[in-house]
């Protein structure tokens, strides 16, 4: 008899740039993408997902274990392990004119 076990997903720790906001993400399906994990984490972290002009803010996930930025389309199963730590780092602009 062969017993089969269904993989339930992995757990991750996600923080923002400053380390001031952290969330634990559980049950991440291995076939989900990095982009889905990022978008799913932002609301609970209280971080905006649009810039001042209403355009989507581009957060890149940096995998602390490897020191590299992940592509949004990479799959969780290919890129991540259980208990991995991600840092969400935005591409964001300062300056411009006074309102």
């Amino acid at each position: 008899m062969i017993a089969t076990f269904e993989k339930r997903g992995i757990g991750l720790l996600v923080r923002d740039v400053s380390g001031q906001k952290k969330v634990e993400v559980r049950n991440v399906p291995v076939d989900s993408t990095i982009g889905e994990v990022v978008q799913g984490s932002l609301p609970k972290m209280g971080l905006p997902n649009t810039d001042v002009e209403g355009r989507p803010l581009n957060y890149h996930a940096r995998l602390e274990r490897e020191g590299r930025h992940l592509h949004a389309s990479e799959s969780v199963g290919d890129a991540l392990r259980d208990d991995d730590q991600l840092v969400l780092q935005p591409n964001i602009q300062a300056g411009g004119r006074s309102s």
Partner: protein
Amino acid sequence: MSIHAPYRFVLEISRQNAKEPLDVTPVDPDWEPALEWANLEAIRRDPNRPVVFDTQNARIEPAWSDELGSPYVAKIRVTVPPIGTCRAAEVDIPVSYFRGLARAASSPLVKSGQLADGEIFNYRICAYPQSCGNGDRVADGSLVVETLPVEIAGTDRSIDELLAGSSHSGPDPAEWLPVFIPSGVLEEAAELMTEAGSAETGGVLIGHFHRDSSQGVLFLVVTAQIPVQYARQELTRLTFTPETWAAVDGAISLRGRDEIYLGWWHTHPNWCAACDKRDNCEMAGKLSADFFSDHDVALHRAVFPRAYSVALVLSSDCHANSIQRSLYGWWRGMIASRGYHILGIPLAISAQMEGDADAEIF
């Protein structure tokens, strides 16, 4: 609608001295800055409260207007839950919190001619109770996302010793969390601004949280600035990239002093110097670069959401005769200009720097 505020909020815009509103529009405020402010205030008020930043269980309720009654809102009350033996704290947020939403809601009225461009208008906030949905799960039902409280180990340090060796600059409302910045950090930033010429530049401010246990006072000390790397530096724009942040993390790690992100700085250079129409421009010599733009506010919101975070702006006037320095920070969930203490500056120079500028709120 937020799980923190089980109300539906509506904005009424009217002309000055008019009884009937021009427009009534539902609004969905970003409550996070208000929650963060209340969290910090709760910590500051109670010396026994641990320095733990966690807004997930705070609650928001409207306080009704004495004059008009419900559903008109006089102010917003945020309740921060008890922790350990420390009691719950109530912190009030003024209705000016909705100013940005009111400004956005007025744009269509200006375009349609119901309001003149630049016309001053009134706005009121109404709130209606509504049942909360389950905000604990994200839209994808398989992901479970749980917020983790962040505790900062503030070390005990005498604030009086720092005050004795510093001078104050900028507005000085009593409710600000004291921030100390070494004069060396300010000088480094000014040198980098000069080197960058007409392009914007900037960096991250790092340092430590402290508590003076003898007085129960919390305060910040900036220890260094990390200049931006891998950023796109343009005339009126500075773009922080993911590589920029990774480089800052690397620098903090190399320093090995348990420093945390306290804020950021950037420059508004003398834009007029690069303009070939300068000699014929009626605005030459009149523009001030000392401001905090909508993009600056958005960056501060996205990257420095905790209420103790600060933003330093170095600006050069049209004549490029001097560099002005202004510090901005969170105040009741909004960003305002604020004062700070300069460490290590001689008293004779500090006397020339004292200004009487009122705090400007964005």
